[in-house]
């Protein structure tokens, strides 16, 4: 494998890791506040459809992004209603949201576009185009560093840089702001937060809303930047990989980025090579597909450190009377 191939694989790693990272951070906010969210997949899917659909109808990708975020937030609101207001089972609500998105996107796509559950192909202003960073072309010929800058770092859509920026931002919000402290507290000991006179319900809804925004961006990226349009079930399990990355990262933002890059790398390799031949030992592509999930189970089993979720995760908070 030569240097340029490696750069290309890493480049597609970045592209594929971006939706994972956004969804993973979305899950991080929600789960740190004590709301389990297995509906990441559904929210991404809904956002992917609505952003592609609105972008196709208006020709403006920014309106598309907005529509994607709104769609994702509506589902987030539903999740909040079920799991915070009515204290229902958060897992069941997540399952329902996944199915709702999976069915509704195809139903609406068929009604609006009549193309078998897909949107028309997007082009021009209806897509996020790659951004060439300053000097990217000038330094292209510099050995080693040139291709790294011009191929790997430059030339992505704005959402990729947004995702990268949201990692330090999330870290800062979570560990350096009052809101972040309260958010983490509400996931560990909501009764303490309540005693301190801070609204548990308010904080949890805020977390779920942030989760909706980030999932919305992740979905919009899928259909308007990574690909040019929506196709049925296009999230293809990415919401679950993001969930896996979140556990892999033990609910911490920087680790989440590395986990998503690792899983993105696995996807990139699986996409490029069907079967990998390691000197006689052939690794079938299915192993690469399943590796993120296997790694997550190994982490969960506690063989590599212990993954301890937020203490109050999954439990509705009932105020004492």
């Amino acid at each position: 494998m030569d240097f340029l191939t490696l750069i290309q694989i890493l480049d597609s790693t970045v592209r594929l890791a971006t939706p994972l990272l956004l969804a993973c951070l979305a899950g991080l906010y929600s789960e740190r506040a004590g709301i389990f969210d297995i509906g990441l997949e559904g929210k991404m899917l809904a956002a992917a459809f609505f952003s592609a659909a609105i972008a196709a109808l208006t020709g403006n990708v920014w309106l598309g992004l907005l529509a994607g975020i709104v769609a994702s937030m509506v589902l987030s609101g539903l999740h909040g209603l079920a799991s915070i207001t009515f204290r229902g089972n958060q897992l069941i609500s997540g399952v329902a949201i996944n199915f709702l998105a999976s069915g509704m996107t195809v139903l609406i796509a068929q009604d609006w576009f009549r193309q078998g559950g897909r949107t028309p192909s997007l082009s021009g202003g209806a897509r996020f185009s790659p951004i060439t960073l300053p000097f990217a072309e000038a330094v292209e010929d510099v050995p080693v560093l040139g291709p790294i800058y011009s191929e790997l770092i430059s030339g992505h859509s704005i959402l990729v840089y947004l995702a990268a920026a949201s990692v330090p931002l999330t870290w800062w919000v979570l560990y350096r702001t009052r809101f972040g402290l309260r958010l983490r507290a509400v996931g560990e000991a909501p009764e303490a937060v309540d005693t301190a006179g801070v609204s548990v319900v308010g904080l949890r809804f805020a977390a779920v809303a942030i989760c909706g925004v980030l999932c919305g961006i992740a979905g919009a990226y899928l259909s308007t930047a990574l690909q040019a349009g929506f196709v049925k079930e296009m999230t293809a399990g990415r919401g679950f990989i993001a969930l896996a990355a979140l556990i892999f990262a033990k609910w911490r933002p920087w680790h989440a980025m590395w986990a998503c890059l690792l899983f993105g790398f696995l996807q990139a390799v699986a996409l490029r090579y069907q079967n990998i031949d390691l000197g006689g030992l052939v690794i079938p592509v299915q192993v690469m597909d399943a590796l993120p999930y296997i790694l997550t189970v190994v982490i969960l089993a506690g063989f590599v450190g212990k993954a301890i979720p937020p203490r109050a995760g999954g439990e509705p908070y009932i105020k004492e009377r």
Partner: protein
Amino acid sequence: MDKMPGWADAVLVPLISLVLAAILSALVILGIGEDPIAAVKLMVSGALGSTYGWGYTLYYATNFMFTGLGFAVAFRAAMFNIGGEGQAMLGGLGVAIVCLVIPWPHWTLALLGAMAAGMLFGALWAAIPAYLQAKHGSHIVITTIMFNLIGAAVLNYMLVNVMRPKGSMDPATRRFDETTNLPTFQDMFSTADAVVFRGAPANVTFFIAILACVLVWLLIWRTRLGYEIRAFGHSETGALYAGISPFKIIMIAMLISGGLSGLMAINNVMGEAERLVLNATEGAGFIGIAVALMGRNHPFGVFVAAILFGFLYQGGAELALWTNIPRELIVVIQALVILFTGALDNMVRMPLERIFLRLRKGAS
């Protein structure tokens, strides 16, 4: 004292939830510019209007009974086994191996062998998440989701690289031998002058599913083990004080759960396709969740809910065939049923409880 009488809890709450889900589904159909009443009529005539329709409805219902029972048994032990899909997939693998490798002399023996293999593979696929939950406290929901996805990869590998006949492009096994083919309703109920259930896939495994409902009912409500499972599901600490081993209950409940989901393969793989294909389960593992939630995790409720979902599935297929409503409508209805009977249960329950409390006050 309970806030509500038992019948309201068991029948009224799910019924209201179901009506809410139905109203929203009708709005969805209206929203895409179709007529909900015509759609329901078409669904009823397509799914229940002929023995052919019934043959499909009961075929789907058989699948959902197995996965619904599987989910319900685990849920009684407070285990949220979302892995029914993967367990059913692996059950299919087990059934296919048994049917392909062993030269069975007669279908009855083949069925017994396939049942054992399907249950064994399904239970094995549930065993690892169960063990990790019981020993290490790894969250069963996440591990079973992961095992669904790993199971899909395993099945993909087995079909593409191992079990596919030489020269075939299709990732599927060869057809099972004639001697393993199960009698369908057409074989069983047709008379010399009247052919019924013509070409429909419902088969003898429907009766095994009913038997499974009865056995699960006996297990949960009439045995010591069932009592322990329910006690554990109700309160883990309480069960611990009563000398019930959490490890034992988690393992047994999950093994039974996985076994029941795996058992589904005798219907879809052995009874219908007569070979193993990719996506043989068609999401039945997930529908099991909806079926169990709607059926209040009671075997009789599961039976009724499975028939209802079988009707929805066959009716939905008819809609997709004759109208512009895509099959995905069923996925939406399924989502709404899960949402209202599962997640938004309290939305119906809280006002009802208030009404009953007021009624009681008025009476006394």
